[in-house]
């Protein structure tokens, strides 16, 4: 491919410059937007090393070195909360990442058009449900007295379980509700990618005597693999960025040992509001860890599959 391209470039020397010029012109608004709206505010990251005084502004505030980092990296609960953060993030990838792919594949295999569309629309809907309501619904259906789950357990003669106060159940609840809420939404990327898989490849596979599963494994999955890999690399970067909103609504002190993560602990210590230096330090720490993990995954993926983020 590359040599072919080079040959083409040589052949149309005069036109190549003009052609490429238009390519650069095209990227100007893009670069401009990123400099103005993404990079300019990044200068604010230096407040992670300052005792930030809102009124005096970033530059006049005094430097404090790594104090802001010490504020959250020290402390007796750091190891527990950090461990919980990583476990929740990793479980999120282990179960939350394959779920939308599976859903997209299943929807893709439906041959009845209206059914396909209906299922797709319905599974997309939970995305619109706000976190507060999701948490409310979870608490409701898991209630020991009136919840559906305990009623079903009751049919088998089991004692009702007060799920929300059991540390051993928290992770399951958190991950499952996440899958429920986001699978349909995340699946649309894969569905779009699936729509671009060449039909001829299926036909070839069928001629070779491939059954449904062979078709999926040899045609469908390879067809969307670049998308899967890209999404995977980006998800790896989010392992540490577990949001605290839903956890705050779902956890109880009795479940802290599995549920309390870095950001929820910071939230309770009131650091989230007003302590901009520490908040920025936390953000910077998370970003750095993310970038590290992404770079590693990216290198691995490039070696294995030649697909990468950059």
């Amino acid at each position, binding site marked *: 491919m590359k040599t072919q391209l080079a040959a083409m470039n040589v052949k149309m020397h005069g036109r190549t410059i003009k052609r490429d010029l238009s390519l650069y012109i095209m990227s100007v608004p893009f670069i401009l937007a990123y400099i103005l709206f993404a990079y300019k505010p990044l200068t604010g990251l230096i407040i992670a090393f300052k005792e*930030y005084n809102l009124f005096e502004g970033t530059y006049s505030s005094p430097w404090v070195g790594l104090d802001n980092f010490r504020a959250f990296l020290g402390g007796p609960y750091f190891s527990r909360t950090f461990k919980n953060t990583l476990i929740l993030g990793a479980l999120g990838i282990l179960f939350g990442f394959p779920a939308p792919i599976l859903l997209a594949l299943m929807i893709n295999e439906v041959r009845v058009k209206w059914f396909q569309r209906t299922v797709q629309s319905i599974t997309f809907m939970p995305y*619109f449900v706000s976190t507060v309501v999701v948490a409310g619904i979870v608490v409701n259906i898991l209630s020991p007295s009136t919840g559906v789950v305990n009623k079903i357990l009751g049919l088998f003669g089991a004692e009702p379980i007060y799920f929300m106060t059991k540390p051993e159940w928290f992770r399951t609840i958190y991950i499952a509700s996440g899958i429920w809420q986001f699978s349909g939404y995340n699946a649309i990327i894969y569905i779009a990618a699936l729509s671009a898989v060449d039909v001829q490849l299926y036909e070839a596979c069928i001629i070779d005597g491939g059954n449904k599963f062979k078709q999926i494994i040899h045609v469908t999955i390879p067809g969307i693999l670049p998308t899967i890999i890209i999404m995977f690399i980006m998800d790896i970067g989010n392992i540490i960025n577990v949001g605290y909103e839903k956890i705050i609504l779902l956890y109880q002190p009795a479940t802290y040992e599995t549920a309390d993560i870095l950001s929820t602990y910071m939230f309770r210590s009131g650091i989230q509001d007003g302590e901009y230096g520490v908040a920025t330090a936390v953000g910077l720490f998370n970003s750095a860890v993310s970038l590290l993990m992404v770079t590693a995954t990216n290198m691995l993926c490039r070696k294995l599959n030649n697909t990468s983020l950059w």
Partner: protein
Amino acid sequence: MKISKGEKAFYCVNGFLLILFALLCLCPLVYVASASLSSAEAVMKGEVFLLPKGFNLGAYKKVFEDSKIWIAYANTVYYTIFGTLAQLFITCCGAYPLSKPYFKGRKWLNIFVVITIWFSGGMIPTYLNFVELGLVNTRAGLIWGFVCQGTSVVIMRTFFEGLPMELEEAAVVDGATHVQIFSKIYLPLSVASFATLGLMFAVGRWNGYLWSMILFKEDSKMPLQVLLKKLVVDTTVGSASGDKMTDTIKDYSDDMLIYATMIVSMIPMLVCYPFLQKYFKKGMVIGAVKG
């Protein structure tokens, strides 16, 4: 084409599992809708399951009581449409050149984008940036200030990379510029990816409230979500302050109000969704190359 027994079984199991998952997704939503339409007492007693009981529009009345809500609705539609278009434009301007292997500086530009996915300046620096650019309290600020989303550039780039090279080669021979190639060949072929990302942008814009609340100083510019958020916050805060709430019989409860605002804000998106779906059609790319 004949369908073998094995395949038949596959389709059945597949369909069954999908129905199961769809029901799982649907039930809570139906509950939310029914509860928002039921009498407060029925909701409180837990008598509502899938159908509304003691039909009552109190919560909706409360939501629509505010005359500002229609302006807010219009604002939301405006920000969603133009914000999505702006975001698609900028994303394409980046993703298209980045998908070309011969684009010089491609690697650095990729890293330039990827860094923004994980690093951000935080709220205060971002706000001060808007102040410096004179975009506070302007609609343009909300529309253009949030066009940078590295994730979508990467996704779009991956989509473009998946399109066959031959498409471009033919056009280059004809002496077309990249703007022409992009608009004449790539654009029609990428409807599915545009629909996907456009939908994601639109949903994000539709649901966003934080920055509109921060950037706008006037109620007349606020989008729907800010108003709905206020409604919900006010009710919950009001009832938490103990003695201040007294002696009234409301025909809706706080939960119902949250449910109703949720329904009000999600209906337009749900109505639009099926129209976008038809773009997820199979084989468009292939057809074009062959033709």
